[in-house]
């Protein structure tokens, strides 16, 4: 039996957009709009983007990277409050292997004439996902990045 492991981690990203909450929310809710910013990956090739934006609805996107590996995204929407909040669970497969499962919360808050988007991902990374070509980081460098990450999290809290 192979080694089973799970690593849990949470991170937050905030952005301030010069657009109304209605517009920012619509970019997540309308399939044609979401496809424009979500489903393109530079020189990676994307398959069709499927989005059923409703509670219990699903989203699917398969992208092939420059090395021919498929990155497959599958989401299920858990909570939708128009113009205010989206909560969904999503998982990522690398080829046939499930590498992570996450809960994502997107909050839309009015700020001046713009919208602050607060994205929080609570992730469970499965089975020590490792790539053969991984860049070897020194322990110290790893810790420094981690410390910076924690400071960003603290600042965002």
């Amino acid at each position: 039996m192979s080694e089973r492991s799970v690593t849990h981690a949470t991170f937050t990203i905030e952005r301030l957009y010069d657009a109304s909450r209605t517009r920012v929310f619509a970019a997540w809710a309308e399939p044609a709009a979401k496809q424009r910013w979500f489903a393109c990956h530079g020189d990676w090739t994307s398959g069709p983007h499927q989005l059923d934006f409703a509670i219990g609805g699903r989203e699917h996107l398969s992208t092939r990277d420059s090395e021919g590996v498929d990155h497959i995204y599958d989401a299920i929407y858990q909570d939708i409050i128009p113009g205010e909040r989206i909560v969904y669970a999503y998982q990522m497969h690398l080829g046939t292997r499930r590498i992570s499962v996450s809960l994502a919360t997107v909050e839309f808050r009015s700020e001046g004439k713009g919208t602050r988007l607060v994205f929080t991902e609570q992730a469970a990374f499965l089975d020590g996902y490792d790539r053969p070509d991984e860049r070897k980081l020194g322990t110290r460098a790893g810790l420094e990045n981690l410390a910076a990450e924690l400071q960003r999290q603290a600042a965002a809290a």
Partner: protein
Amino acid sequence: MTDRSVVHATITVERTYRASPKRVFAAWSSKEALLSWGLPGEGWISGYERFDFRVGGNDRSHFGPAGGETYVNDTTYLDIVPDARIVSAGSMTSAGTRLSAGLMTVEFQAAGNGGCHLVMTEQGAFLDGHDLPENHEAGWNEMLDKLGDHLARDQAAA
């Protein structure tokens, strides 16, 4: 517009049981077993409207104190490794109001003397002040104690 808020929290609860990972996993994967231990309080009742324990399957259960508020729990199973791991995503509602959404990871590890160390992690988003991480943590502690009683009864009956 109402005041929206989200509290994110990670809850971890662990237990070591005198039962094999196979038996503890079985108690999480059968509807009958779940109904016998999976309630957070005395005098609570529950039932499954749908039970479908397989990757991609959906469960819907109703539970709550007898004569009191009823909670509806929707779960989708995302990853199942027999006798080792269950990962699911779900949300809870009451009277149409969503209280929380979360990701559950349950790990079953072999412990000494044929026992099982269970590590349960809930990564939750608690919505609009309707629910709190403390409530879930207390509920899980209660349920995992009941799971211990269930396993002891199950062993005695075998």
